């Protein structure tokens, strides 16, 4: 990574460049509109069906809808950052960017800033549909929602940095990870159920993920308990470690990219 402070002008230029692209590629709004709504419809309806029986079924209703809305914080932050980078490879714009004074951190900040706008739209829509269609108000989680959402946001960005690192190293063939990696993380994170529901063999893996503790905290609050700060703290530490590892990995892969002259794949 380059040294020195970040330039707001360059961060803003990157965010605006991606806004132009989105404006002219409306199909990319699918990620922030159609899929989130389909997810709420699917998990909301399963929850409503299971909840008819009362008892623990009612709990499951909240777990499913709360889980899918907060999962979209991870999904939207991850997908917007990684596809933002992939856009540069698809349009063969990577070399154009690499020969400017733009620092890696400025690039990531610019795409993340643009991604925040998409995230607000995507998560806002899921929350709105859950309220209108299933009378589930995610804000009932209360202030505990804020640290949990912030942790999930950082986890999404960290996974995206890892994906970008893999694409830099292995080329476009690895870009399927941008969409696929979350399918592996989701079941292991106990988004909709306590981690004890997973096969015992997977418990250590699940417990090592910051997302597991974030969703456990969400369920505790939905059950009417006070905010379990110990789980929130575990999730925050895990997210910080993950972010550190992702940055380290990305820096290493960027070094390999420059060393091996992989820019020739995109120019």
């Amino acid at each position, binding site marked *: 990574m*380059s040294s020195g402070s970040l330039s707001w*002008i360059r961060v803003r*230029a990157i965010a605006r*460049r991606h806004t132009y692209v989105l404006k002219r590629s409306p199909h990319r709004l699918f990620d922030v509109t159609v899929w989130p709504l389909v997810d709420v419809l699917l998990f909301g309806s399963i929850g409503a069906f299971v909840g008819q029986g009362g008892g623990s079924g009612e709990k499951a209703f909240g777990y499913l809808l709360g889980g899918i809305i907060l999962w979209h914080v991870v999904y939207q932050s991850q997908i917007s950052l990684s596809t933002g980078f992939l856009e540069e490879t698809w349009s063969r714009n990577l070399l*154009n960017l690499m*020969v400017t*004074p733009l620092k890696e951190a400025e690039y990531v900040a610019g795409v993340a800033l643009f991604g925040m706008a998409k995230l607000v739209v995507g998560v806002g829509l899921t929350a709105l549909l859950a309220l209108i269609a299933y009378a589930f108000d995610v804000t009932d989680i209360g202030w505990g929602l804020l640290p949990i959402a912030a942790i999930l946001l950082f986890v999404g960005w960290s996974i995206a940095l890892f994906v970008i690192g893999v694409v830099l190293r292995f080329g476009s063939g690895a870009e399927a990870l941008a969409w696929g990696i979350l399918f592996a993380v989701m079941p292991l994170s106990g988004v909709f159920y306590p981690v004890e529901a997973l096969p015992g063999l997977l418990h250590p893996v699940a417990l090592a993920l910051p997302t597991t503790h974030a969703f456990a905290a969400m369920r505790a609050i939905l059950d009417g308990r006070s905010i379990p700060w110990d789980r929130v703290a575990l999730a925050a530490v895990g997210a910080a470690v993950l972010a550190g590892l992702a940055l380290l990995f990305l820096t290493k892969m960027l070094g390999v990219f420059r060393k*091996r002259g992989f820019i020739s794949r995109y*120019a």
Partner: protein
Amino acid sequence: MEPVFQAHQLVKRYRDTLAVNGVDLMVHAGERVALLGPNGAGKTTTLMMLLGVISPDSGWVEVVGHRLPHGRSEALAHVGFSAGYMPLAERLRVREFLRTYGELYGLENPFERIEEELERFHIGHLSSTMCTELSSGQRTLIGIVKATLHRPRLIVLDEPTASLDPDVALRVRTGLRDVCRDEGSALLITSHNMLEIERLCERVVFLSGGRVIADDRPDAIAKRFGRDDLEGAFLHLAGGHGQMPLPQETDRPA
């Protein structure tokens, strides 16, 4: 004259291929220098190391006093780069594309500069056109406008006029000469059009097999190798005679 760019003993190897083998290169303020050589001579790899896109195995690069890779961002703020093979970003109008890059080069409000530079190359009418709707000549001109927008100390162009018609190529040459004269920018250019280089550049650095084998004025190089012009010298040097001038040798058949 103060050097705007220095490369010292650059070496780059890709697996079994030694692409660049101990290149020393210096470009001074306001100089117009051509980096020539046959395909595979190491020109683009050298340029990519100068721009910090590829890291050298050994040797170092310094741009306007900033040593790469640590001073990369500060160094590249003084460099403008364009290449004939580089597409413009998709889904952007020319004005939006240039605004983005103007800001990336630190211009807070680049619109006035964009208009000036588009007019310099007589393409002001393209401002609202989508980048993907431009002809290859127009794309090249926009790429050069992008490279000169921030009035860099060093303009680096990799085969900018490949496949351009003579009219556009003339506009490129005239525009570049004007930029260098008006802004005091140095120019480092690669091209396979020897006539163009003779008209534009005052110094030629010839690479072959990853090494510098000649570094002089175009006419001096032609004379040194017993040729009438740079193209003759190119064919001679590309034929592997760089270390031993053979004035009487005829041109290699195509």
